[in-house]
C-alpha cells in the first residue's frame, strides 16, 4: 500500500516535470523573448540589453531552465514583468480568492448534487425525477457566460439585490468577499451540480438494478436501510473521481465566470497575464494549475483505494 502511494506520488512528480518542460519550451520557441514581448516598441538598444541582463536571458536556455526549476522547487517563481513585483505576491491573494470561491461552491454544490442525484434515481421516472432532471439538463446545457449574464441582469440590475460585479481589492478579507461571491457561486454551482447530479443518478440506478440489491430486498432488508447500507456506498464510489475533477476545475479558476463577474481569482489572472504577455506569470500559473490537478487526482485515487475493499485487498495481495 505504501509502495503504491509512493509510486503514485512519483508519477505525479514526473507529470509536473513534463508540464514544466513543455511550458518552458513553449515560451522559448515563441518568437521573441520575455523582454521583446514586454518592452514591445521600445525593445531595442540599451533598454533591451538592460532587460535581458536583468532577467538573465543571456545565458543558455537549459541553464535558465535549471535555475528557474530549482527556484520553483524552493517556492520562488521569480518576478512578474508587468508589476515588477515577486510573482508570489501576485499569486498569493489570487490563490486565496479562488480557494474561497471554490470551497463555497463545493460545500454547497456537492452535497446538493448527491442529494438530487439520489432523489432522481430513487423516484426514477416519477414526478420528482422528471422535475429535477428537467432543471438539471436545462442548467447543464446553458453555457456559463449566458447563465452568469442572466443572473446579473435579473438579480443585480432588475432586482438590485446584490452587486453585479465584484469590486473588491484583490487582498480583501473573507467577510468582504462573502457577500460579493453569492452570484458567482450560484453560476458555478448550477453547472457543476447538474453534471454531478446526473452522474450520481445513473450510478445509483445501476446499483439499484444489481443482483445484490435484489438479494437485499429478498432478504427482508427495509427499503431505506437497504438504500443506505447496500446502495449508496457502492454507488458513490465511482463519483469520487468526478468530484475530484470538479474540484480541480474549480481551483484552477473558472475562467469564464471569473471574467464575467470581474472576480479576482486565478482564472482571471490567467487571462490577464496572457494578454499582458507576462510570460513568467504564465509559466508559474501553468505549474500551479498542473500541481492542483495532479494533487487532487492523487487524493481521489487514494480515497477510492481506501474505500473500495476490492482494490484494497488486491493491492495488499500484490
Amino acid at each position, binding site marked *: 500500500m505504501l509502495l503504491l502511494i509512493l509510486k503514485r506520488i512519483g508519477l505525479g512528480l514526473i507529470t509536473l516535470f513534463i508540464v514544466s518542460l513543455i511550458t518552458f519550451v513553449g515560451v522559448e520557441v515563441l518568437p521573441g523573448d520575455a523582454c521583446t514581448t514586454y518592452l514591445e516598441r521600445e525593445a531595442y538598444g540599451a533598454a533591451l540589453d538592460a532587460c535581458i541582463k536583468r532577467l538573465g536571458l543571456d545565458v543558455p536556455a537549459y541553464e535558465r531552465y535549471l535555475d528557474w526549476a530549482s527556484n520553483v522547487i524552493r517556492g520562488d517563481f521569480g518576478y512578474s514583468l508587468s508589476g515588477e513585483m515577486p510573482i508570489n505576491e501576485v499569486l498569493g491573494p489570487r490563490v486565496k480568492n479562488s480557494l474561497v470561491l471554490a470551497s463555497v461552491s463545493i460545500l454547497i454544490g456537492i452535497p446538493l448534487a448527491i442529494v438530487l442525484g439520489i432523489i432522481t434515481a430513487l423516484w426514477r421516472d416519477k414526478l420528482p425525477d422528471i422535475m429535477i432532471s428537467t432543471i438539471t439538463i436545462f442548467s447543464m446545457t446553458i453555457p456559463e457566460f449566458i447563465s452568469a449574464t442572466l443572473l446579473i441582469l435579473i438579480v443585480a440590475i432588475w432586482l438590485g439585490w446584490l452587486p453585479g460585479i465584484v469590486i473588491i481589492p484583490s487582498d480583501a478579507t473573507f467577510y468582504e468577499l462573502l457577500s460579493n461571491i453569492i452570484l458567482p457561486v450560484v453560476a458555478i454551482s448550477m453547472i457543476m451540480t447538474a453534471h454531478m447530479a446526473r452522474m450520481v443518478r445513473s450510478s445509483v440506478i445501476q446499483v439499484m438494478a*444489481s*443482483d*445484490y440489491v*435484489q*438479494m*437485499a*430486498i*429478498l*432478504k*427482508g*432488508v*427495509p*427499503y431505506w436501510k437497504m438504500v443506505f*447500507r*447496500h446502495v449508496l*456506498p*457502492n454507488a458513490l*464510489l465511482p463519483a469520487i473521481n468526478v468530484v475530484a475533477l470538479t474540484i480541480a476545475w474549480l481551483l484552477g479558476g473558472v475562467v469564464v465566470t471569473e471574467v464575467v463577474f470581474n472576480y479576482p481569482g486565478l482564472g482571471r489572472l490567467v487571462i490577464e497575464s496572457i494578454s499582458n504577455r507576462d510570460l513568467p506569470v504564465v509559466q508559474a500559473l501553468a505549474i500551479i494549475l498542473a500541481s492542483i490537478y495532479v494533487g487532487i487526482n492523487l487524493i481521489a485515487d487514494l480515497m477510492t483505494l481506501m*474505500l*473500495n*475493499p*476490492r482494490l484494497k*485487498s488486491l493491492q495488499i495481495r500484490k
Partner: protein
Amino acid sequence: MSEIIESVKNLSIGFNSQKGKQISILRNVSTNIKKGETVGIVGESGSGKSTLALAMMGYIKQGLFPLKGECLFKSEDLLKMSSRQLEKIRGRKIAMIPQNAGQALTPNLKIGYQIDEALRLHTDLNKTERDKKISELLNKVRLPSPETMAFRYPHELSGGQQQRVAVAMALAGKPDLLLLDEPTTGLDVTTQAHVLELLRFIAKDTGTSMIYVSHDLGAIAQVSDRIVVMYAGEIVLEGPARKILKEPIHPYTYGLLKSIPKLSLAGLPASMPGSQPQPGSINEGCSFYDRCNLATDHCKKNSPDLEHIKELDTNVRCFNHKELINQNNNLQTSITKKSNNSEAIEVLKLKDVSISYAKQKFFDQLLNKISDQNPTVKDINIDIKKGETIALVGESGSGKSTILKSIAGLLKTKDGQIKFENDRILSSDLKMRNPNDLRAIQLIFQNPDESLNPNHTVEQILSQPLKLYFNLSGEELKKNIIDLLKKVRLGEFYMSRYPRQLSGGEKQRVAVARAFAAKPDIILCDEVTSALDVSVQAAVLNLLQQLKEDLGTTYVFVSHDLAVVRAISDRVAVLYQGRLCEIGPSQNVYKFPSHPYTEVLLGAVLEPDPDIKPKLVAEDIVEEKPPEKGCSFQGRCPRKIGDICNLEVPPWQIGENGNAIRCHINIDELASLQQ
C-alpha cells in the same frame, strides 16, 4: 398427507407490449409445496421458472405484473401484501439462495456483517449470541476457519465459498421455505457436487422445504422429491422425481432427457427440433405443437389441460401422453458417430508449449530475462490428427481456453512450438502469420451474443470471411452465403436478420457458419455449447458432427462439461492448472484406470438419474496458482502418496487401453485402487 406451506393458484404474470397488448410469460400456474419437501422446477431459459420462483416470494421483477391468481403462503396472498408485511416474511419465513452469489453479495460489506444483518432483522438475539450464531452458520455450511471468514469481503472468496455464504445467510432466519434459483450454475463440476451435497444435508437436517429452480436436470435429479417441468410459461408435467426422470410422459420432457449427453453413453444425444415459442406468440393449440413428434391436428387447435393421472401421481399437459409410455425404454440410447478412419496425418502439433500471463517487466525484457518460472500453462505436448475431434477438459483455471487462444494466435507462447502441416512452425504472434494460415484456423466462441456484431445482418457477418479470404463479390458471394446457411440448417431468409432477431441456437449456428466460411482445416471451439439450452446444445453438437463428417474438419473442442466431451470427442486431454494430467481416446479416458483428477471430475458429474449419485473424492479447494514443484494436482489429490508428489513432476505412463497418465502411482496399482 403433510401440511402445505405455499400454494400457487392459477397464477399468470405478464407485461404490456409496446403495442399495448398484454403478454403473459406465466400462464395459469398452480402448484403446492408441502412441508419438508424439495420441489425441482426445471425448464429452459424463457420458460418462466425464475419468474415463478420469485413470485413465490412476492417479488415481481420491474416491468412485469400479476395478471391473475394468487401465491398463498400459509393462506395469505403474498402478491397482495404491503412491502412492510413482505419484509417480515422474506428472509424469516421464505429465504432465497441466488444464482450468482458473487454478484448477489454486496461488495462493500463483510461476510459477517451480511449474515449479521439477516440475524438482526429476523431474530431477537443480542450481539454476543449473534456472533456465536454467525460462526455456527459458517461452520454448518462447511466453510474453512469460520472465525476469520466473517471478516472477509465477498470478492476474497472463491465461487463455491461465496455460494456457501449465501446459503448461511439464507439459513440465518430459520426459514420454512428455501428458494434456490440456479444455485450451482456457473460453479465448477466438483464445487457444484459439493454444494448440492450440502443443500441435501441441510434439507434433511433442518426439515426445510426447498424449491430448486434449474435448467440442469442433472442437479434437479440429485435433490428433488418432486419435479415440475415448465415450458413456455406453463407447467407441462409435474410428479415424483423418479417417475419424471425415468418414465416421462410428456413429449417435451422426454425430448429434453434424450438431448442430455450422458457419461455412460458414447455417441451424440438426440436433438429436438425448433425452439421454445416467444411469449405472446401462442394463440391457440398446444405450446409444444411445433416441436412435438406426437402432435396431431387436434393439438393444433386445442390446448391441453393439466390432467391428473392417478396411478403415476403425475399431472401432465398432453393429449397423447399414453403413446409415450411404451417409448420410455429408449431413453438410454444415442446417435452413434461415424468414427473417422484415422489417416494418422498430424495437422497440428503442440510441442512443449508454455504460456505465461505474467507481464515481463521492462528491464527483464531488455535483458531478455525470463521472469516467470511458473507459467500458467506448461509443458503441453499434443499432436492433433487430421479429421479428429480432440477435447481439452478441465475446470476453470485449467488453462484450456488459454491453450486455444495461443493456437489461434491471440496469445503469445512463452516457450515451445506450435507446428502446423508438415512440421512448419506457426508463429504464436497473429501479425506474423500469413493469411492462409489465418484462414486455416478458425475460432468459435462461447457466447454468440458477444461474438456476433449486433449491428451487422447475418449476410454481412458471413460475407466478411468470404470477401477477406476468397475475394468473392456479387452473385457468387450471395450463393456462398446461402450455401453456408444451408449447411447449418438455416433458411435463405435469415440473411437480412440481425443477431438480436435470432434465438440462442440460431445465433450459434451463424457463428458456426462464419467459421466454416473460411473453409478452415482446424476449428477451435471454446465452450461453444455452454451458453445454450440443453435441447439446443444437442442440435449444435449434431450439426458440428455432421459438418465434420462431410468436410473432414479437425476440431479442438474446449469444454468443462465431461458429458458433452464424451459425446463429441474422439480423444480427450484432461488439464489441471495448465498441466496435462491424462490424454487418450475418449472411450478409454472414461474408463478406469485414470488419473486421480480425471477420477475426481468423473465422480462429480451429475447425471439426470436419481440413482446415480456423484462421488465426492476430493476437497473443492480453489488453487490460485499451479504449484512450483512436483505434480500439478498435489494440493487436492485424494491418492497422494507422499513427498514425491510435492517434489517431482510425475512421469507419463501408458495404460493398456491407450490412455497416457501422468502420475507417480503405478498404473496397474491405480487400476486396482479404482475398481
